[in-house]
């Protein structure tokens, strides 16, 4: 694959980024046309950042973390506490959140990355749940317990109030940069290492590569994305819910990645968009039974399109242009099916 796509890679990256930026930045204009609204656009962009970072770990390295809520939530609480007690400016808050996330990811990585597969998933889940319980019990004085962290602060960026579209464009800019970095990682030797870990870590180890270090760095990068998303969540809305630390948040990002298409970077973001759109817009049409309908959609996607929406798109493209895209389509479908396991 790399040989075939090497020559136009940078040009294609540029195009991808340009299209991505155009779609994201114009979101406040097209989302209301399909029943969305401004705040939803911001939330979608924030979750898209989370999803891209998650894909670096799950899609590239093949490690299924069920504990990314730990980074998302801890970072959100850090931002919340900074905004409430230190300064209403978002930059120190975000800086502190990223530092805390990096430190936490380093620690958790050292402990959990010793194991792979299901054991890794369970370990991360257990640690994340410990954080959730701790926030509800011993740290209740700081976190506000089940009430969440409420505050009357209005976050600002160097004097600009972070409300409405300001937050959106701030988050969108970060999402575009984040997506660009993820693309660069994918095409870099480091990204190649991550993908080698996924295909066969043991063989890589035998060739003399210090696999643990690569895994650790991949894990930490992914955690920082989650941390940035968690921090933005509080800037977008100065309130921290304990749900941010709950396993269901980790579960949600896994589901978004799977229905979008693991390992494709764009796929998980599509998944995030779909989930949030469904939860907030379609829900109002369906009424009480919306969770049931959502469950059925998941099942259908996983059974008939294990590669998620991205596989669906490729099949569609293959059907429309049978000559040109079918070869490439089949190729990437195979590579996308693998991570779904």
């Amino acid at each position, binding site marked *: 694959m790399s040989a075939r796509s090497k020559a136009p890679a940078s040009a294609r990256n540029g195009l991808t980024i340009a299209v991505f930026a155009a779609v994201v930045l114009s979101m406040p204009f097209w989302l*209301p046309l399909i*029943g*969305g*609204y*401004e*705040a*939803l656009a911001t*939330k979608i962009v924030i979750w898209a950042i989370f999803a891209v970072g998650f894909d670096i770990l799950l899609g590239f390295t093949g490690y299924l973390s069920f504990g990314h809520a730990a980074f998302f939530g801890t970072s959100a609480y850090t931002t919340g506490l900074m905004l409430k007690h230190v300064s209403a400016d978002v930059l120190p808050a975000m800086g502190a959140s990223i530092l805390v996330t990096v430190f936490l990811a380093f620690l958790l990585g050292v402990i959990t990355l010793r194991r792979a597969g299901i054991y890794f998933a369970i370990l991360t889940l257990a640690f994340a749940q410990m954080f959730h319980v701790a926030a*509800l019990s011993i740290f209740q004085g700081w976190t506000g*317990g*089940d*009430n*969440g962290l*409420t*505050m*009357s602060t*209005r976050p600002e960026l160097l004097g600009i109030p972070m409300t409405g579209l300001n937050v959106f464009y701030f988050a969108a800019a970060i999402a575009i940069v984040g997506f660009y970095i993820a693309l660069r990682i994918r095409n870099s030797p480091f990204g190649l290492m991550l993908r080698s870990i996924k295909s066969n870590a043991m063989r890589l180890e035998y060739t003399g590569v210090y696999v643990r270090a690569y895994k650790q760095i991949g894990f930490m990068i992914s955690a920082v994305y989650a941390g940035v998303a968690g921090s933005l969540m509080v800037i977008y*809305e*100065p*309130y921290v*819910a304990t*749900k*941010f630390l709950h396993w269901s948040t980790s579960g949600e990002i896994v589901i978004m990645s799977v229905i979008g298409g693991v390992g494709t970077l764009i796929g998980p973001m599509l998944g995030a968009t779909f989930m949030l759109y469904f*939860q*907030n*817009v379609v*829900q*109002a*049409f*369906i*009424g*009480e039974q*919306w*969770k049931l309908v959502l469950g059925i959609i998941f099942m259908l996607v996983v059974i008939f399109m294990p590669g998620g929406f991205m596989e669906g798109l490729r099949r569609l493209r293959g059907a429309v242009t049978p000559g040109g895209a079918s070869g490439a389509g089949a190729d990437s479908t195979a590579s996308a099916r693998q991570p779904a396991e």
Partner: protein
Amino acid sequence: MTDHTGNNGWSRRRLLKASAAGTAGLGALALNGKAPFHFVRNAWAEEAIGNFPVKGKSVVFGFNVPQTGAYADEGADELRAYKLAVKHLNEGGGMLETLKPSSLSGQGVLGKKVDYVEGDTQTDPDAARTSARRMVERDGVIMYGGGSSSAVAIAQQYLAQEMGIVFMCGLTHSNDTTGKDKRRYGFRHFFNAYMSGKALGPILANEYGKDRRAFHLTADYTWGHTQYQSIKDFTEQQGWSTVDNIMTPLGTTDYSQFLTAVLNSDADVLVLNHYGKDMNNSLTQAVQFGMRDMQKNGKDMQVVVPLYSRLMAQGAGASNIDGVYGTTNWNWVLQDAGSQAFVKSFEAEYGFPPSQAAQTCYAQTLLYANACEVAGTFYPPEVIKALEGFEFEGMGPGKALYRAEDHQCFKDILVVQGKGPDKKSGEYDLLDIVSHVKRDDIIYPVDTFAGELGPYKPA
């Protein structure tokens, strides 16, 4: 119903946009000449706050209730009440005929037809805020309301203050809602844990003796915490002692480990600070553990559920709630004119009587609409001022007062006892009113709880 929400929402949005652009243009044209037309009606300077000024022929209310989660039963009943309130505001009927003083016409509010949108809080503060923002930003609601769960109410109350949209709380019983976390844009008609404790304490001591030892199981969030505190304080004033308290997560289904701890202690009263499905589960399991037929310290073991509702009694079953004490905001068997008018129209619409959650949500919607009529505008600071200190009757027994300093409504509440299967006279006749506690007996000074209401205009 669903069509209603969706289609109207979209076209209204477009309409709003178009008309917003239109008025802006008009305003610009008029700048050098006459005063803009839309400022003439009300004399005071009214800048845009939240979704004010209201454009178009209808005004939209948002109803954000738990359709899923531990309090879903309450949420479903709240929504029924909201729909009925909208119907009455537009067509007359119900408590519109009993509320005094009333400025409501039964032909919409301030000449505009009342429309509504609904949302699901999922009994979760984060989901509730997201849903509320959808209502505010997309659907253009001028006010929103709903419950249950105090954590959800408080989270939405902060959002209300931020966005400049009045929030009329539904079922929320925590002291914090109008205490520590009170907000200028939030109003609560429902009673709170402090009042429950004050009403219930003397009756429990009278019934079960003054030397009881209580064990609490408490839902682990703001409501549970404050209710535990209030019940503990008021029963200890009567001479009871508190053995222990265990915080249980919201939405727990298996209480056996907590109940075992109760059995192993020397407590002779179990206090369940639980609500909704949590209470159904914990009470049913306590009964299965034999706690209601047990002797401890030479006395009959007793179970108390400080916050009671008819829906919960129904869920737990008549044989389980037989004789169990608790308090409630309102019950459908009340004979005053307001309650009767509401119960009759609710039964005619849905075929069964309303719950206390339904009554509070219905009353809140009418009270908001009435305040708009009194103020003569939807301008939030004026509506808030009209609600603050508003004294009224005809929405339940006795006179009620919306206290200006903390936005808590004070009115009569009920101490009730569960009716056993042999005593009840129908499917919905589950609570026996033991005492009708007067407003003056449960009122408390404003400084009982700390907290600041905040400004009339969002920052």
